[in-house]
């Protein structure tokens, strides 16, 4: 009986975790990097395995850890957010998120992120940052990084 109760208690939690929208996942990441700890370990749970492996390999080859971490902590570029759009593939394991806003000098900036679902978690796999001249040029729908780059 105790086992069944535990299972019933855990099921909704798992279901919620698996259905976390891309934007919510992005917000969690954004919140997490606010302390700017400059350590790669803290970012591991937010990026796809191949991105983490590449980052660790770059550090091993001599890249400064703070530069690698700063590259992965890209949300800090955006100071004021104005809109976001997301889409997921039919199989539900790949999705793209576009976040629009302004950077520190009030110039428009847009992040287009590719997410992949690994073990029930949305992880960032690729990124394209656009800095158009006018705010009207920011995308008004979800774009994957390659799409956003091609249309820039």
């Amino acid at each position: 009986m105790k086992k069944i109760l535990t299972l019933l208690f855990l099921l909704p939690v798992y279901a919620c975790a698996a259905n976390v929208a891309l934007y919510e996942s992005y917000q969690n990441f954004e919140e997490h990097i606010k302390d700017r700890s400059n350590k790669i370990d803290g970012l591991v749970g937010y990026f796809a395995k191949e991105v983490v492996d590449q980052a660790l390999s770059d550090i091993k080859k001599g890249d400064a850890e703070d530069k690698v971490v700063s590259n992965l902590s890209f949300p800090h570029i955006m100071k004021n957010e104005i809109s976001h759009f997301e889409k997921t593939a039919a199989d539900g394991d790949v999705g793209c998120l576009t976040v629009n806003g302004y950077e520190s000098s009030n110039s428009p900036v847009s992040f287009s992120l590719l997410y992949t679902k690994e073990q029930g978690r949305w992880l960032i796999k690729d990124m394209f940052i656009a800095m158009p001249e006018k705010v009207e040029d920011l995308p008004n729908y979800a774009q994957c990084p390659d799409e956003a780059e091609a249309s820039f």
Partner: protein
Amino acid sequence: MELSSPELKVAVGKFISIAYSKDKGLTTQLLLSGGASITVDEQGHAKLSGKAGILVFNGSPVLENIGANIKTINISFSNEEDMKIGYTLTLNMKFGRMKVKGDFDLDEMITSCSGLLCRAAKALKFRHASYDAELKRILGN
């Protein structure tokens, strides 16, 4: 350095200033001929190339100032009208890419380059606030 649009636009101006201080004639010809581009690798080896030829220069001081985890930089230029030059700067970082668009007046850049800009570029000292302010003014915010 913060990866912001004005700072990246200043970096475009600094690359052009170094190229211009090395070969004024070829740099002007390349930028006005349309389809020119500057490529910079991780070590700072920079190359301005186009129909009129190729100019190789040292882009390390600018690269160090950008400070991002960069693999390569590409700046493609288009001659929009008269002396107005449009550009797209692409930062290929170790993770992801970033693009910035802008334009500047080459005439204004050359006029500035006869003074403060080129002296600073020749000395490869990019920490003058007035130099950065001048580039920001020309390349736009």
